[in-house]
């Protein structure tokens, strides 16, 4: 009998708990010391306890039998400035495509922090996680003004309704003006971006990256089409960003790489060939063999690539014009 009573009692308790559950939920939803989870910026969800921001493991990708990425492993520390170098077709841009969600890989893992699987996210949410990218070919919105281009890239809630009601806060306005002066386009702020020169478009791209305040910047050939002075400024800019933000730079201009990088990763045929400081990499016998070997195999002199800023073909010209693209 008493047991029966106890049973009834526990039933009652469970029932009460059930009744209370929604109230509890509401109550916890109304707590002032916490922010609703869906209001949290995506970025803050990233867990980087181990100081490693990006884990890339066993990445494979092939286009019609051509292995663009081959068991690629790469770890990027928080606050690091890393340069990726390698010949055309070594997989540098493809790697960036995979990280930003443009291309699906065949197998492997890409984790942002310890907890976010980038392969499960689409481009927009990857961007909203704080991964910004500057493309190889400058792609700005040519029909809109420089100012609008920057406004679009601002770090903000980018869903439909908030965007509809969005207004520039003074802080954001200041930010845009600041970036405009950094990239030297203050005077052209109301020009259509399409009317800018190639180098200016490069700067605008960098500016768009800057206003978005990303945690990880993927920068693809930033100095193509820039004058030596501008190249220098870019180098300065990127080094100043490192530390607070993490930067991955892909660049063919070895002079530029040497000037900014403390750590360089050499990609070859879709996987990492060598990693270390510029000196280490340059003296790495494997690297030398691969590049010099290839150079010996191709009798044509290494032509200058898309880079217009030709003066910096370095001693160890790692650039090879072999068309390996499928």
């Amino acid at each position, binding site marked *: 009998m008493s047991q029966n009573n106890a049973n009834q009692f526990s039933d009652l308790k469970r029932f009460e708990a059930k009744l209370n559950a929604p109230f509890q939920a509401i109550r916890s939803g109304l707590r002032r010391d916490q922010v609703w989870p869906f209001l949290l910026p995506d970025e803050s969800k990233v867990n980087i306890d181990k100081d490693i921001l990006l884990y890339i493991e066993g990445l494979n990708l092939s*286009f*019609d039998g051509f292995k663009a990425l081959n068991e690629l492993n790469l770890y990027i520390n928080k606050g690091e400035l890393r340069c990726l170098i390698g010949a055309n077709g070594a997989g540098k841009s493809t790697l960036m495509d995979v990280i930003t969600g443009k291309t699906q890989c065949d197998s492997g893992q890409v984790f942002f922090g310890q907890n976010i699987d980038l392969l499960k996210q689409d481009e927009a949410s990857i961007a909203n996680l704080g991964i910004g990218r500057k493309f190889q070919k400058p792609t700005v919105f040519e029909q809109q003004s420089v100012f609008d281009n920057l406004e679009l890239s601002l770090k903000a809630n980018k869903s439909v309704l908030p965007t509809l009601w969005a207004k520039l806060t003074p802080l954001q306005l200041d930010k845009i003006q600041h970036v405009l002066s950094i990239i030297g386009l203050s005077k052209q702020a109301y020009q259509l971006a399409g009317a800018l020169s190639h180098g200016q478009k490069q700067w605008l791209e960098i500016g768009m990256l800057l206003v978005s305040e990303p945690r990880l910047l993927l920068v693809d050939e930033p100095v193509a089409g820039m004058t030596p002075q501008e190249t220098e400024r870019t180098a300065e800019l990127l080094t100043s960003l490192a530390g607070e933000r993490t930067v991955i730079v892909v660049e063919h201009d070895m002079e530029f790489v040497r000037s900014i990088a403390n750590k360089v990763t050499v990609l070859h045929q879709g996987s990492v060939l060598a990693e270390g400081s510029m000196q280490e990499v340059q003296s790495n016998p494997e690297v030398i063999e691969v590049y010099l070997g290839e150079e010996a195999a191709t009798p044509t002199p290494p032509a200058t690539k898309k880079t217009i800023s030709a003066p910096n073909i370095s001693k160890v010209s790692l650039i090879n014009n072999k068309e390996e*693209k*499928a």
Partner: protein
Amino acid sequence: MKQFQNLIYGLIACFSFAFFSVYAVANDSQSAKAKSDTELLVALTQVKLKQMNPLLDQIKSSQAQTALPIFKTLLEGRLYYVRSGKHLIQMQKIGKEKHYFELESATALPHLTKKLVKKVKLNNSVRRYLRSAIAELELSHPDAKIRAAALQSLLSNLETNLQVTIEKRRALETDNKVIDLLDVALNLYQLKQSESAALQIKAIEQLASRLEIPVKNQLTTVAETSPDPAVKQAAFDALKEIEHSTNRYELVDQLFFGLSLGSVLLLASIGLAITFGVMGVINMAHGEMIMLGAYTTYVVQLLMPNHIDYSLWVAIPAAFMVSGLMGVIIERGVIRHLHGRPLETLLATFGISLILQQLVRSVFSPLNRQVFSPSWMTGSLEINPILSLTLNRLYILAFALIVFFALLTLLRKTSLGLNVRAVSQNRNMAKAMGVKTGWVDAMTFGLGSGIAGIAGVALSQLTNVGPNLGQAYIIDSFMVVVFGGVGNLFGTLVAAFSLGIATKFLEPVTGAVLAAIIVLVFIILFIQKRPKGLFPQKGRAAE
């Protein structure tokens, strides 16, 4: 005045009689018979109804060949005779008016009026006699096809008095198909008349493999009314079996119609598969290229009205030239300037399609035009009572496949094909290699349009030729190309046939319109799921 006329007709009759006489004299051996034949026929106009049957019997036995048409005409109530001279003629109603013709040569006799002629009378007993006599005559007809056809029509109305005739014929018959039919008839007699359940069941078993509708009807009656449960069961089983094979053949029939629709879709979309699929040009005037082809057929037939049978052979190259030339003009005049702007190309070519439609409307009138089928394309291939394949659809199916594979060979084996593929894959590179891209564009577009023209020739054999002909096909053909995968000719082939078959299988369930809608919606959903179609092109180059 009237008498005078009568006199003249009398004279004519006399002359014709005289002619017969001369004829008879000339063929001395047959003269007696011919004379008696003529007399018999004349007697037909005078005899009383009661004596009609013996007289007809006489005619039947004396002249099997001529009797058949006379009997048929008589049965249809179209046998008349000229009052004066008792000359037999046939009447035919055209519209509401009666017209008179010679019995054998079917030459018109325009001078005869209602007053001058009289109908040969007949009653039901005569009709009954005539029916069996006709059947008998047809059953012994030298042509096996006519014998078979006669039997087919007999089956639905088997009269007891014919059983003997059929049995006799069965003993003589050599043609397998006719033997089968004769057996069916005999089995039906057996089923109807036999008292023995065993014999009935045996008949039922033999009938179970037949698809003729009378067989089914008879079996149904037996299954419902037979007093013997065993017979009933046998009939029931046989019906089931028949049902089964009927369904199977109906399925084949549907499949054929599906393939036929598929071939039409294929023809309509191959041209598009080239211009849209390979070149990447959106040509909304593609349907009008088909229409031009159809109108070319019409014009060719106008130009050679006496050689309709050969007209298609002229029309095919002509349509190819007309539509192809129009295609080249459009490409050079408009599309060339819109390179790399697909949406603008779409709009401009749509404008062209409006102009072409209105042009045809102004030149040929907005009404549909009649395009004739050559005689070798009419008729059908009868496989069994359920399944018969119409020849025009069969030919068009074959034609579509021929055009498809010819085009495939052209693209794969010739230098034009090589150039086309080169330009479609990398225009600038091809240009750098010395390919005249402009020329290749024009030729490719001309080719695609020309094939659309050929499709128009084929379509003119199936549907009405009017200014809106092309519009009806443009959406369907785009769907086919997109569904199959742009740039993949085999995809187009598979897509055309699968859509055709799917539509035809849906139609009996949902009705034609709803089937079309369902297929459209299906494709829309499919494209959402697989934007590159059934057989997408792979790799980086495709992006």
